[in-house]
C-alpha cells in the first residue's frame, strides 16, 4: 500500500506571491470558526490524536483544491467515519441514526483548563541520545509508507545537529495508532546550497533547519 502526503509542499514549484494579511483577519466565512472549534472539541474526545489528524488531512485526495478550513472539515469527517463516531449518512443528513460511542466530552467548564494545559509531548528518554550538537548527520533518503515528518526536500541530505530537544512522542508511530514510542528529537540545520540546486538567490547564505526524530538520521 502506498501512502501519499499531499501536504509536503516545501520547495515545490509555486511562483505565486504570498499575500500579507492584517493582524485581526482570522476567518473569511462564518462557518470557518465553527470548523476550528468542532475540530478542537472533537480532538479533545480522545477518539484520535493530533498526528492522526495531520495524517487524515494530508492524505485527502483533493488537498490542493481545498481551502484551509475545508481541509480541516474534510479531515474531521474522515476521522469521524474511521473512528466509528458517526456514519456517512449522519454526517450528510445531520440526523443521528446510530448510538454514540464512548468519548470524553469537552465541557464549557473544561475549555480554559484544557487550553492552558496543552498537550506536552516530551517524555522520559529510554536511552541516551545517539547524536550530539555539532555532529554531521545524513537524513533518511526514502519516504516510509505512512505519515512522517521528514519533509521531501530534506530527504537524503547532510546536515548538522544544532539542538537536542529531549525525547518526544514519535509522530510516525502515533499517527498509525502504534503508540507514542518516544525518540530523541533534534534540530538539524542544512546549508541551503546543500538542499537546492541552484541555491537560493541573493546575498549572504541561507540556512534551513528541520526538527527530526532520531530514526530519521544516520551519522554522516
Amino acid at each position: 500500500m502506498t501512502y501519499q502526503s499531499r501536504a509536503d509542499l516545501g520547495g515545490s514549484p509555486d511562483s505565486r506571491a504570498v499575500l500579507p494579511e492584517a493582524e485581526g483577519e482570522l476567518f473569511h466565512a462564518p462557518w470557518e470558526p465553527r470548523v476550528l472549534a468542532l475540530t478542537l472539541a472533537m480532538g479533545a474526545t480522545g477518539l484520535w490524536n493530533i498526528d492522526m489528524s495531520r495524517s487524515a488531512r494530508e492524505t485527502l485526495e483533493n488537498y490542493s483544491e481545498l481551502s484551509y478550513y475545508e481541509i480541516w472539515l474534510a479531515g474531521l469527517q474522515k476521522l469521524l467515519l474511521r473512528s466509528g463516531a458517526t456514519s456517512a449518512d449522519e454526517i450528510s443528513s445531520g440526523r443521528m441514526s446510530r448510538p454514540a460511542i464512548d468519548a470524553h466530552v469537552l465541557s464549557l467548564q473544561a475549555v480554559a483548563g484544557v487550553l492552558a494545559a496543552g498537550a506536552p509531548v516530551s517524555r522520559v528518554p529510554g536511552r541516551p541520545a545517539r547524536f550530539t550538537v555539532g555532529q554531521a548527520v545524513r537524513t533518511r533518503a526514502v519516504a516510509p509508507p505512512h505519515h512522517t515528518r521528514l519533509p521531501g526536500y530534506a530527504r537524503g541530505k547532510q546536515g548538522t545537529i544544532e539542538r537536542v530537544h529531549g525525547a518526544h512522542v514519535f509522530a510516525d508511530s502515533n499517527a498509525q495508532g502504534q503508540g507514542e514510542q518516544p525518540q530523541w528529537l533534534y534540530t538539524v540545520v542544512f546549508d541551503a546550497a546543500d538542499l537546492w540546486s541552484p541555491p537560493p538567490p541573493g546575498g549572504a547564505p541561507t540556512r534551513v533547519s528541520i526538527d527530526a526524530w532520531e530514526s530519521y538520521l544516520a551519522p554522516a
Partner: protein
Amino acid sequence: MTDHDNHDHDHEGSDLSPMELRVRALETVLTAKGYIDPAALDLLIDTYKNKIGPRNGARVVARAWSDPEFRRWLLRDATAAIASLGFGGRQGEHMIAVENTAEVHNLVVCTLCSCYPWSILGLPPTWYKSAPYRSRAVKDPRGVLKDFGVDLPESTGIRVWDSTAEVRYLVIPRRPSGSELLEEAALANLVTRDSMIGTGLPQTPSGAS
C-alpha cells in the same frame, strides 16, 4: 470578521452557502450524539478571537527588549520564560525563541501543515497556511520577504526554521532604533505579528500609532 456585510439574511435554510449547511449539519449531529457541548465551541472561538493572539507575543518581545535578564532566560528556556508572563498551553508547549541580529534574520514556516505558536501568536494567518508560503519559504526566503516589503541587506544571512515537530518558534525581532526611551508597553505596540514570524520588521516609533 466581515461576514455580516454579505450575509444579510434571516438565517433560514436555503440562502446559506453549501459549506455553511454542511458545517451546521455536522455540528447538529455531533451535538445530538453528545460528543460536543456547543457552549464550549462558542468559548473556544471567543478565546482565539479575543484572548489568545499576537499581543501575547508582543509582550514577550517587549520584555526581552527591556530586560536583559529576561532576554537571556527567553533564549535559554523560552517555554519557562514565556510561562512567567502567563502564556502557555496548547501549541506552545515546547517553545524556542530565536533572535534576529545584523548577521542573521530568522523566518519560521511549517512546510508540512500549519504548525504555529498559538499560545503567543494565536491562530495562524491565511498566508502562513498557504501553498505559496510553504513552498517558497525554504527555497527562496528573500523572495518571500519581498512579498512582505522586507528587503534585507545582502550581508544579512537568512535562517529558516521549518517547524516539523511539536517545537514552536518565536522570532525576537531587532529593537528598532529610536525606541531607546520607550517603556515596555509602548515597545509592545511596535511589535507586529509578522515580525515575530520573521516576515516583517517591527514598526519604528515614529510610524507607530
